[in-house]
């Protein structure tokens, strides 16, 4: 089975936040317009660098996410590139209106780094596992929503969103994730990566669910099913062309995300397919429930997010063709 830009076997595991920090440290040294704002959030390598070398470019507003986002908007209004850092649940959950009104409405150059997003912030439980962020944020005009899959893609995404002048939400998962990609991964905002080629069905995955989706591709290959795998790292604007090509060439789609399928990646893909090229779409993701504490493995099993569940959804969707 041909795979593109994928390490065989997967490389070391690393958190997306660590990879994000590695990239931004480099960029911050080159670009004095970069400012970083924290809502009493662990600062990582970027924060340490700024504390030592650029203290006037670092602001920590304390536990006050509304003020965090709007203060960043004010700094962007003055020409800065403002990166905000807090948990995804509180960025979206407590500062939705600030993201909408103060950042996106005026196309301000704020990068909202949503740390520990998604269902798989396992130990923390339902209060902290944001599953509605994709649905909520993709309804906001002007805002880009980026969801990388591993350390390589995270670093490339950070470079791309820094270069891009405008509002961006960057969705980072909590657990260390294996390195999937080789450094020659091409990264273009709004352009899905075809990770595996195939014509029988397409799996469209985002973020931390990519390794499980690759495993599902292998399971299916063993059964003679050639699955295409798209990494939809840019959830908005979604790569419509890649989605429609998948619908046309493979005739069935399974979406995979660690968030709610209601309005999430699954919703976004279904909207495009239904309007332009109706084909069956099965959605893997959280099905209208809150999360809970547990291990990653337990949660993946309970919320039907394993490679086995993905493969099962593929078998079902193929029957509907």
């Amino acid at each position, binding site marked *: 089975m041909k795979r593109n830009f994928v390490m065989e076997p997967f490389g070391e595991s690393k958190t997306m936040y660590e990879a994000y920090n590695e990239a931004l440290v480099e960029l911050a040294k080159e670009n004095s317009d970069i400012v970083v704002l924290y809502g009493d959030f662990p600062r990582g390598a970027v924060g340490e660098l700024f504390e030592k070398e650029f203290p006037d470019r670092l602001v920590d507003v304390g536990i006050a996410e509304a003020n965090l986002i709007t*203060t960043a908007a004010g700094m962007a209004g003055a020409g800065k590139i403002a990166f905000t850092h807090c948990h995804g649940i509180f960025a979206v959950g407590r500062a939705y209106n600030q993201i909408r*009104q103060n950042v996106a409405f*005026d196309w301000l150059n704020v990068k909202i780094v949503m740390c520990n997003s998604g269902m798989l912030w396992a130990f923390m439980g339902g209060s902290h596992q944001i599953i509605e962020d994709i649905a909520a944020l993709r309804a906001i005009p002007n805002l880009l929503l980026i969801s990388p899959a591993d350390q390589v893609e995270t670093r490339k995404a950070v470079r791309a969103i820094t270069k891009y002048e405008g509002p961006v939400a960057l969705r980072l998962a909590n657990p260390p994730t294996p390195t999937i990609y080789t450094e020659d991964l091409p990264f273009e905002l709004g352009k899905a990566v075809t990770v595996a080629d195939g014509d029988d069905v397409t799996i469209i995955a985002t973020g931390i669910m990519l390794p499980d989706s690759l495993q599902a591709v292998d399971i299916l290959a063993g059964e003679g099913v050639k699955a295409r795998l798209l990494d939809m790292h840019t959830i908005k604007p979604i790569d419509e062309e890649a989605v429609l090509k998948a619908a046309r060439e493979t005739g069935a789609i399974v979406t995979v995300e660690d968030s709610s399928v209601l309005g999430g990646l699954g919703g976004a893909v279904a909207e495009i397919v239904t309007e332009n090229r109706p084909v069956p779409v099965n959605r893997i993701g959280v099905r209208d429930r809150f999360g809970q504490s547990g291990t990653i493995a337990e949660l993946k099993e309970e919320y039907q997010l394993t490679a086995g569940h993905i493969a099962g959804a593929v078998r079902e969707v193929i029957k509907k063709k």
Partner: protein
Amino acid sequence: MAYDEKLIAALKSKAKTLRRDTIEMIKAGGAGWLGGSFSQADIITALMFHHLKHDPGNPKWEERDRLIVSKAHCCETVYAALGEAGYFDKKEYRSYGKFGAVLQAHTERIVPGIEYSGGSLGQGLSFALGEAMAARIGRPTPLYRVFCILGDGECNEGQVWEAVMAAAHYKVDNLVAIIDHNKFQSGSKVEDRINLIPMVEKWQTFGWNAVEIDGHNYTEILTALENADKTPGQPHAIVAHTVKCKGVPAFEHKNLHFCKLTDDMYAEAMAVLG
């Protein structure tokens, strides 16, 4: 502090123009925020036509002082001040609030001279804080000053106090909050809704250099603004006691918050302002 009588007279004349143009805008638009526009008119006038460093010919001049009107529904006097200063043609007033108009029902940054898109209360001070902190980066003295006008009812919003805490913590002394303390909010008197009175002590307790003034007395307004410049190390709050609908005696102290203008009201206003 004594100010030149001619200066005070000129500012009073400007404020009268702003109030008159506000009435014309509300008439053209069909409705508007008369009470809060009139209560802040003298503060806006003092800032725009005396205290602020700005250039209507170059609205994005990097060194300009910023005026963030957090109570952005009271946009009419702000538009009137910008039009009067020459940021755009006054003929735009006629399309205020209409489909396709540049002058929307709440301020938007696309309008030359408008720094902040308001409409969601309680957020402007945070935005002003960000602008003020950006002015300090890499400089021994800030590149510009930031002035933020808030409503008193607006201070119900928790985010105001998040910004108040952060500004005091970082000693952002190029930031001046001016509270248009007209004692009314949308549906009632401030004290009958969630009482914030006494206002000035709250800001002082949070670490701000806070004073209270008569928000319609130019000597007091200008003195407070100048004193803010002379007091380093703290952000500044000016609690301006104002009168809702100030400028047309028949309207004063009434809560004409968001209202339509009847022909009688228009005639009454123009008899004083026209």
